[in-house]
């Protein structure tokens, strides 16, 4: 069952330009004409509680909290289908990413938890120069503080292991991406 965060009735938030992060995302999708191409293009739409079209709409109405409660943007796997097909040439995938950032930065504990996956992923890549699935998942489980979580992933892990899709050993690329990450941090710090 979908846990929908869609309001049944609402009064749009006044369009004041105080919430800069919200305005940033709104600006990305303002020209949207609700044609629904993004939604129909999205391979993950089936798992989303709000369709992308609805989410953009709620953003434009300023319903920030409702949007942040949804899991739609977390499920975006950045395949760029919507961006590619949007007739208005809107940077939709970028908007999804901006929402993830916003949720991680100022969202509630649930959102911060969802962000952990991304954080751990990037951390792992920075350390190893590529993703090391075993190490990554271990860190993730630890960070989540949920003893039942490894059980849930167990069957999937075994399946992947059997197909040789889980990278176990060390990597010769360790630390190789360090300078890249450092550069990005310095750029972000400067801006």
């Amino acid at each position, binding site marked *: 069952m979908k846990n929908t965060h*869609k*309001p*049944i*009735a*609402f*009064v*749009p938030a*006044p*369009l*004041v*330009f105080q919430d800069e992060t919200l305005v940033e995302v*709104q600006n990305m999708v*303002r*020209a*949207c*004409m*609700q*044609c*629904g*191409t993004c*939604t*129909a*293009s999205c391979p993950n*739409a*089936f798992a989303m509680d*709000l*369709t992308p*079209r*609805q989410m953009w*709409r*709620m953003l*434009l*109405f300023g319903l920030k909290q409702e949007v942040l409660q949804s899991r739609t943007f977390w499920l975006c796997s950045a395949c760029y289908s919507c961006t590619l*097909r*949007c*007739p*208005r*040439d809107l940077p939709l995938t970028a908007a999804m990413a901006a929402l993830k950032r916003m949720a991680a930065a100022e969202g509630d504990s649930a959102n911060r938890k969802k962000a952990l996956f991304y954080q751990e992923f990037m951390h792992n890549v920075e350390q190893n120069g590529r993703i090391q699935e075993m190490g990554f998942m271990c860190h993730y489980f630890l960070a989540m503080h949920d003893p039942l979580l490894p059980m849930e992933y167990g069957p999937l892990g075994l399946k992947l292991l059997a197909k040789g899709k889980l990278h176990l050993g060390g990597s010769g690329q360790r630390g190789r991406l360090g300078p890249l990450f450092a550069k990005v941090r310095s750029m972000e710090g400067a801006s």
Partner: protein
Amino acid sequence: MKKEYGALVVGAGIGGIRSALDLAETGLKVALIDARPSLGGILTQLDHQFPSDHCGMCKMLPLTQRDQSSQYCLRKGLFHKNIDIYLHTELTGLEGDPGKFQATLRRRSTFVDPTRCVSCGLCAEVCPARVPSEFNAGLAPRTAVYLPVPHNIPNHYVVDLDNCQRCWRCYEACPTKAIDFKFEQRKDFHIIVATPDERITQDLPLWFKDENFPLHPTATGEKALELLAGGLECGLMLLDLDLPEAEVERTLRRALELRPNLAVVLLVSKDKDGAKNEDEGKDKAVAALFKQGAREVLAKPLKQAQAVPWLDKLFMRLVSDESFSLEVGAVILAAGFECYNPGDNPNGCADLMLYGSHPGVLTSLEFERLASPTGPSQGLLTRPGDGKPLHRIAWLQCVGSRDVKKQADFCSSFCCMISIKQALLAKRRSCGEAEATIFYMDMRTNGRDYQRYRDEAENTAGVRFIPARPHSILPGPDGDLLIQYYDYSGELREEVFDALVLAVGARPPKSMERLALAAGIEVNDSGFCATRYLSPNRTSRLGVFAAGAFGEPADIRGSMIQAGAAAMGASRMIRVYHGPRDETPEAEPEYTDVSRQVPRVLMALCSSCPTLELNVNADALRQRMAILPGVVKVVDVKRACTREGWDTLRQEAEATAPNRVLIGACLPYMHVPRLRELGEDLKLNPALMDVVDIHTASLAGRATSFGGHAACRASCAAGRGEEPGASPGVCDCGETARTDEMSSLLAMAAAKLLGADPSSLPQATPVSPQALVVGGGLAGMTAAMGIADQGFKVVLVEEAEQLGGQAMNLRYTLGGDDPARFMEDLIEQVEKNPNIRVLKDSRVVLSRGKAGRFVTVVATGEGMAHTLHHGATILATGGHEAKVYEYGNRVRKCVLTQLELEQRLAAGSVDASSLSGVAMIQCWRSREESRNYCSRVCCQGALKNILMLKKRNPGLPVYVFYRDIMTTGFAEHYYTEARRSGAIFIRYTPDTRPKVEFKDDKPVITALDPVLSAQIELHPDLLVLSSGVEPNDSAEIADLFGVSLTDNGFYQEAESKWRPVDFLKHGVFACGLGLGPATMRETLLSAKAAAQRAVRILSEKQLSCGNVVAEIRDTLCSRCGRCISVCPYGARALDLDRDKIVVDELLCQGCGSCMAACPNSATVLRGFRDEQVMAVIDAALAVQPAAAAGL
């Protein structure tokens, strides 16, 4: 000798034809050119046009002076004495100034001599090449020698050189030697090859031996130049880039000095593994040489299979194409548009839409061909490929339109209505069984009657309209198509369809860049011709006008109006630079009265075509014809299509002194202008002459057409199992049948001529050279200026005390123009114009008369009455913003109409920065039964207010409740801008109308947001209503001038597509808001088009009717009135004073409906009397005594 024309019209689609006719009818000579080998543009491919679902192109044909152009299906051909048509011709240069342009044209040869081609089709039968047919939108193949449009007249085959395989089979097959590949000219076409490459030197002469070209290989440029200087008649030079660079350049320069017309082709070696840098260097060198005059590039190493045909084709172009120039006063560009091709890479969507890879995915043009009886499936709606009948069809709107990623920040305007029409067509073809579904974003039914059409499709016919944009199509079961889309509730839906029609939009014509360069005009961001908002018919160059869909995508109606406006601009320009028109019109020819003479028919048979002698027993034919009643002589004429042929005919006629002439030849419509000349020479009315097509009959049973008697008899004998020659003379393969057929055709025509009424036509009406314009608003004033500038007097009658009308209420336009300033200028110009007499505070009280001669009484406010004599009338009584009294409008300060908001924003009494929210409701009381039409101006009005509000206060929340945003054409850009600026658009349907209440004197709006399916509650400061446009009350005026109104009180034009500013009553025209809701731009266009229609009448000294008109035998008439209601032209009326049915000869187009309806045979058609028609039938059925005798 340089030909002179009044105007050059580029593009012979419907826009070009309309402009050309509008100019030709005022007596100007017009050159009409088209890059295609056929007339009619895209309309040749479309059989069905909404709302009638018929073709109606012929309705464009002149209604007065009809006999100056052949009254004939315009899809097949256009023949007007003032229009010269050049097909397969492009504009390559335009020098000079308005009034005296030098236009350089290039005619690409079709390699088929039209005077020889008999359209027998033998060439196409042997042609081995197959390419997708343009006419059938690629659904069927065609050969490289083909008929561009199967129904054209005259229709000649053309050779598509690009796809020709150079096998020469058509050349050999042609029975009349019409195909000319210039074999003889080849031996005088010397080719010099300057190359250090020895292989080329050795190979080339061998390769070209068969081709008859003399080849001169040289090793250096020096030697090549020596040959040239020695006077060699060289047509082509191949120059190798492997020669030293300086030598190449010098040789090229020197060669072009010696022979300025020499074609120089560069040989460039493209090594596959060659260094990239080297290639770039070469490209630069080539580009430099192109600037110096090199013509083309041929890649080395040469291969025989490619190089030989390539050079052969180049030779054919060089010797066959011709360049010529014309002197023209003005130029009209009507090059139309191209349909968006989803297969175009890289911006197409062929991969997502399965276009090209799945036979069920069609473009709207392909569907149109599929539904056409002349199409690939003979009109059966079946899927190409597997032939499955199409029962579930989906239309996908906005393919290639409204998509900034495909360089289309515009709406193509016509696709919505096309899709509705096609959906209804599919429904009707399947007796309602087909399921038609249209996926859309906004249904743009923004014409006056379009909304009704959509409602009918939705409610009566059951077409489904789904607001969604499926992004990709999947192959479904059994070759069907699967469409997935999300509906507004967020549910994923899947549906299976048999076929999917992509409603493709418009793109600028492919040749746009070249044409813009040649004509020296600017193009806009979307690649269409740039026009200014308030001078929509003009391009950036003075004297060059844009017609049809060249400046902005438009439907047929829009194109017609735009073309009329362009014609008006051109006509005015020509008058301005050439002074007043020649006051010496051609003398009316005088004809001898032969009504008291015994009919004497001279029959001439053209014997030029070899088909006649081969396929018909000519002697028997002549003998049979000679014994027909009334025929005094039968003569043979060699080549009736040439000047010599006609001279022989004239001499014969002068000797015989006949009073009827019958000519048996091909292509009757080609001969009509010549009949007029012959008539002048013989002083015989051309109505007593006729041309019969005997050519088609002589080709019947084509399989044996060209073997002639011998082959025919041999095959017959073989068919009977006999030795050839066993029973000589016995032949049953059609010669006798053909002779019979031909003689009965001729006998029928002779019988018709015998019965022709030789009495003279009703007298012509003299024209009062003055126009009356009723209404002094934007439309009326523009129309008055358009007529006055062409040298005619105009009386402008305005009810109010000031000129200006509704446009005076506007403060700004979407494009940022200043309407107030524009109107001030216009009023000043009108009041100062010496040809315009303005009567303010006046009204029309009485009008009588008909086209050319109206008498109207105008009463002024002071009680004066003016009696005016005028030849044409323009009704521009305008409209106004509809009055809305609901939602607190006119009661509460916080509720405004769009127009009030515009005025207050301009005046500063609404301060955008102090507002905290604005809500707008579109389509208020429009597009539903009280006023079921789109008011056209409100969406653009709302957008311009939104953009103005947002400009002044970017943070202001603006909410717009809308049904469909109707921003057609380039106005779409402002819709995108309005969305981008942050306005939120909320769609509603008539069932989910927003509710408005007031709390503390502020509006509270509750509505349903369909995307979230949630109730939204708004508390704006201002509520703005788009109340729409209503026509001014014009019932009285309409009654005075005998014209009709629509249900909503707009003027009812004669034909919504083809005659958009005419009334059925000839000589009365309408424009502006009175005709239908329109923006300023559209009003300007319709006013200019109406002005040109009026000038057409005013520029005649007198109006005479056509030869075929209805007459009434009053004593037989029972006044039942049936003929009045059936007349499609409104030409008949019951004259109560005289108790008679009267026919307006100028209006009557001779269709014969009245004759069929009349129970007493009281109404007769000149040229088609009962006795005459019976005699023709008798002649057709008569068993010829001669035939029975076995001749």
